């Protein structure tokens, strides 16, 4: 068994698996992926709300969010041989107060400034786009090129396809530390002492990336937060758009098989009350609050039955955008973490750019704003 490869990827989430796929696609299939748990996609990648959106994003993220939606998502199912259920029917971000509309307006004009087609719509147009919404919604932002996809099949699709292409995967392989050889990060050591070695090391282990990077003296300014989601039983087909709110109380969509998937913020009570952070439990407080929020925007769903609820970790970067970056003090290491609760929609573009960084090529869009040292004071 060879434990040496050109590229070692730490973390078998959608980002790690996508990077592996695009590396293999470019002919660099000498890649090893190390997933800490027994299941590929055990982290946020299988727990998220499936939003594939550009609207509402920081302008530093928009160029690659837009690139992925234009160039990668449309053919992804075909490429991977798995139905990703990608649906591009637009995103309504709803407002009920003047305060909400002001916030939406700012987000919209920021996005327009980098060329995204997003505009404000009034109550009447909201109803035309989606007749099931509540009467007290006074306006919304509308981004017709946003959408949603199935995060489960997308993540596992990247895994399956790259595995077929020769990428080596190890599960139940938790990484403990990185080691430098002659000044270059080369070795990846598991909890059980097994050592892997690679020319390039991509660190895509979600929040845990912080601890792993610290073993070579690099600190990534991020924290973790829990987010929750729920799914209803199958419903008759109602709409294909993605919904969100200016207040951020919930977001979601109707999946292809008929269930509605909604996500929501847990609030700080849940995090501070949690006895064992690794348990990742849902809290009935959040579940009920989500139901109230959803019904107040989509009253038609009041009788829909919830069949399951779950939680997942977010790797929150202190300024809300990820770290996709080489590290000056640790050559060989490439960071891909800090996705701050919206790294699913951008995963194809991020995976592609990571493969380009490994190959020493220029990335499809400029991501220098996502460098790890962006917090450094300028002297």
């Amino acid at each position, binding site marked *: *068994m060879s434990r040496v490869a050109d590229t070692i990827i730490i973390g078998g989430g959608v980002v790690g698996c996508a990077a592996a796929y695009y590396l293999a696609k470019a002919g660099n299939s000498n890649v090893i992926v190390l997933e800490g748990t*027994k*299941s*590929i*996609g*055990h982290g946020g990648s*299988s727990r998220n709300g499936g939003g594939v959106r550009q609207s509402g994003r920081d302008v530093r993220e928009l160029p690659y969010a837009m690139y992925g939606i234009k160039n990668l998502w449309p053919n992804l199912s075909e490429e991977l041989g798995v139905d990703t259920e990608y649906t591009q029917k637009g995103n309504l971000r709803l407002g009920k107060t003047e305060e909400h509309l002001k916030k939406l307006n700012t987000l919209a004009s920021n996005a327009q400034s980098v060329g995204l087609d997003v505009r404000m719509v009034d109550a009447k147009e909201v109803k035309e786009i989606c007749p099931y919404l509540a009467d007290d919604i006074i306006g919304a932002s509308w981004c017709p090129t946003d959408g949603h996809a199935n995060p*489960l*099949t997308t*993540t*596992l699709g990247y*895994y*399956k396809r790259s*595995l077929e292409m020769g990428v*080596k*995967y*190890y*599960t*139940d*392989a938790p990484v403990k530390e990185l080691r430098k050889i002659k000044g270059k990060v080369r070795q990846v050591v*598991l909890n*059980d002492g*097994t050592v892997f070695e690679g020319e390039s090391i991509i660190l895509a282990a979600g929040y845990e990336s912080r601890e792993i990077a610290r073993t070579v003296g690099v600190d990534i300014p991020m924290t973790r937060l829990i987010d929750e989601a729920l799914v*209803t*039983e*199958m419903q008759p087909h109602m709409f294909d758009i993605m919904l969100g709110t200016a207040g951020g109380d919930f977001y979601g969509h109707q999946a292809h*098989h008929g269930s509605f998937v909604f996500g929501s913020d847990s609030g700080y009570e849940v995090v501070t009350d949690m006895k064992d952070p690794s348990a990742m439990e*849902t809290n*009935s*407080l959040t*579940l*009920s*609050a989500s*139901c*109230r929020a*959803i*019904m107040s925007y989509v009253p038609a*769903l*009041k*009788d*829909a*039955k*919830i*069949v*399951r*609820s*779950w939680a997942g970790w977010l790797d929150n970067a202190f300024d809300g955008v990820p770290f996709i970056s080489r590290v000056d003090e640790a050559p060989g290491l490439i960071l891909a973490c800090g996705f701050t609760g919206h790294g699913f929609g951008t995963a194809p573009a991020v995976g592609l750019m990571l493969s380009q960084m490994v190959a020493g090529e220029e990335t499809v869009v400029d991501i220098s704003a996502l460098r790890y040292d962006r917090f450094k004071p300028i002297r």
Partner: protein
Amino acid sequence: MIDIQEKLKEIGPYVEAPDDYMLVCRCEEVTKGEIRKAVHEGFFTIEEIRRYLRSGMGLCQGQTCGKLVKGIVSRELKVAPTEVEPAVSRAPMRPMEMEILAEDGGVAHE
């Protein structure tokens, strides 16, 4: 540590069986053959298989087929059923209307 490629070699290729057409997950209509095939595509855990095929994701949340799926997966992997971890159960215990769930934990009703 599980070496996926090694394990795939060890269990050999997927071979069609006469009862592959059998429905195992009735809620989501997943057949025995689909589950068997998924194992040979590299999906070794119940968690991965349910996410890939939707087995156990319907109204009963796997209460009916959970054991059956476990048996099929362990046979394909050539391990004891006890080595295959079941899917995690999560709230609510039984499917429940949003309107009813919404009454919990909020501001008390007057």
